[in-house]
């Protein structure tokens, strides 16, 4: 099993993307032997009323329920997110929630974020936080330049310990382990696509320190090429059992599949 937790459909206004509809993306992922994927709608980054993006996503995914797990994009600083979240989970069958504080203009550690994280925990769905969407060094002049600050996210993790957070596009830069080697945020999971592996073995080291049950395979498609993430898993000094966890078992468990 290879479960990709970091994919998207929809329009990215700053660069032309290929394979950004559900059918094409599925073909692309399957050509890399990916068997399931969590997917969100990029349009939800830009619509003020993000629920329209979630409805679009549900329509796109209807023929692909056996392959994709839908991820809702919501803005807790906007109106009616509570009703939208319930609709996404109970009616549309979405399996996760994505927050984009850098695009939706609220602090990641804020009353808004605490409220929606608490609600997501009540629905037992994980919360995706992309540290970035694209590398800021190539940012379009209309794009944001800020990354999610992991230490601020950590405050949210601690404030809502019953919620499960998935940090995607994470680049080693922030402290995740305390002085005694224990994870600082036990409810924080890390997607692997930006971790070094063959050289320096950051991926394997992180799996050892956080626990291999806290890492998740992700590619970043259709923004990014997929083989680099697959190579990272192949090059990691981990047991077959640990790799199986990261490649899919952990995602299955988080999504209650």
């Amino acid at each position, binding site marked *: 099993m290879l479960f990709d937790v970091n994919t998207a459909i929809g329009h990215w206004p700053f*660069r032309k*993307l*290929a*394979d950004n509809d559900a059918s094409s993306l599925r073909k692309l992922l399957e050509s890399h032997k990916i068997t399931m994927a969590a997917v969100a709608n990029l349009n939800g980054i830009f619509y003020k009323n993000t629920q329209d993006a979630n409805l679009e996503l549900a329509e796109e995914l209807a023929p692909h329920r056996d392959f994709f797990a839908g991820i809702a994009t919501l803005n807790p600083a906007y109106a009616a997110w509570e009703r939208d979240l319930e609709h996404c989970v109970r009616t549309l069958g979405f399996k996760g929630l994505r927050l984009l504080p850098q695009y939706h203009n609220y602090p990641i550690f804020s009353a808004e974020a605490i409220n929606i994280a608490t609600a997501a925990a009540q629905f037992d769905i994980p919360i995706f936080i992309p540290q970035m969407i*694209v*590398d*800021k*060094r*190539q*940012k*379009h*002049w209309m794009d944001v*330049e800020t990354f999610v600050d992991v230490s601020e996210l950590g405050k949210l993790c601690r404030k809502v310990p019953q919620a499960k957070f998935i940090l995607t596009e994470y680049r080693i830069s922030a402290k995740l382990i305390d002085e005694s080697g224990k994870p600082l945020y036990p409810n924080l999971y890390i997607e692997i696509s*930006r971790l*070094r*592996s*063959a*050289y*320096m073995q950051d991926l394997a080291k992180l799996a050892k320190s956080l626990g291999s049950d806290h890492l998740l395979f992700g590619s*970043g*498609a*259709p*923004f*990014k*090429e*997929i*083989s*680099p*993430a*697959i*190579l*990272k898993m*192949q*090059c990691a000094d981990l047991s077959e059992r640990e790799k199986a966890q990261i490649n899919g078992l952990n995602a299955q468990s988080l999504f209650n599949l």
Partner: protein
Amino acid sequence: MNKLKKYDVIDAHNHLSMDAAMKLNRADAESRLQAADRLGIDKLCVSIPLTAPCPSPDEFIRANDAVVEGMRMNRRFLGFCFVNPGYQTEALREVERCIVKKKMDGIKLYHQYLICDPIMKPLMTLAAELGVPVLMHAGKCTDAETLKSQPLLSNAMHFLKAAEMFPETTLIQGHIGGGGDWEWNLRVLEKRPPNVYIDTSGSVIDRGIVNKTIEALGIDHVLFATDGIFEEGAGKVIDAGLRESEYRKLLRGNFQHILAMRKV
């Protein structure tokens, strides 16, 4: 995993590092070789560029000595000599030492000066006389942080100008995936200056980046590289889905062609 191994791949842009005693960090060198083994990379072009605004001759000579130590440690390391062109006399002397006596294969420049700065002329002339390439850290970064920290970062427009200023010198623009606006760089290089190559390295693995680079410059002017970012470097060329003949050029042939230009 070793889809690349059969090509005897040359990584045109990689590095070594120094330890606290300013000698070769052998553990790091070993780690890079192990990573190269896992990904099917045969040889690695290595340098130790210094990123300070104005590294002194003593500092760049020490860095180059560590590269020489690496070349002695393992013949898979092909040395590139780093200098600060601002110290003109010392830089020329150091290039002579590294290329002629120590058998390094190229010159590495960082962001101390733009590649089209007139101060480069003696160095570029010497590189042409020796028949070795000049690889330079480059990018079209658009974020405030990089613009502030690397004000003299060369981009494709600077390379285009340098290609005219130094037509006899082989120039390699570093890491198309080094973080900047790679599409902008490629649109500029569509003019295909005959003495400019580009390497594929860098952490940016936007889909299609390798294919578009080849489309812009032509397959003969693109060099495979990782810049020490191994899976990204290997994975994006695997996903490019090139023809066998194109892989042979990209992964080894084009760099061998550059090596064959050597005159000393």
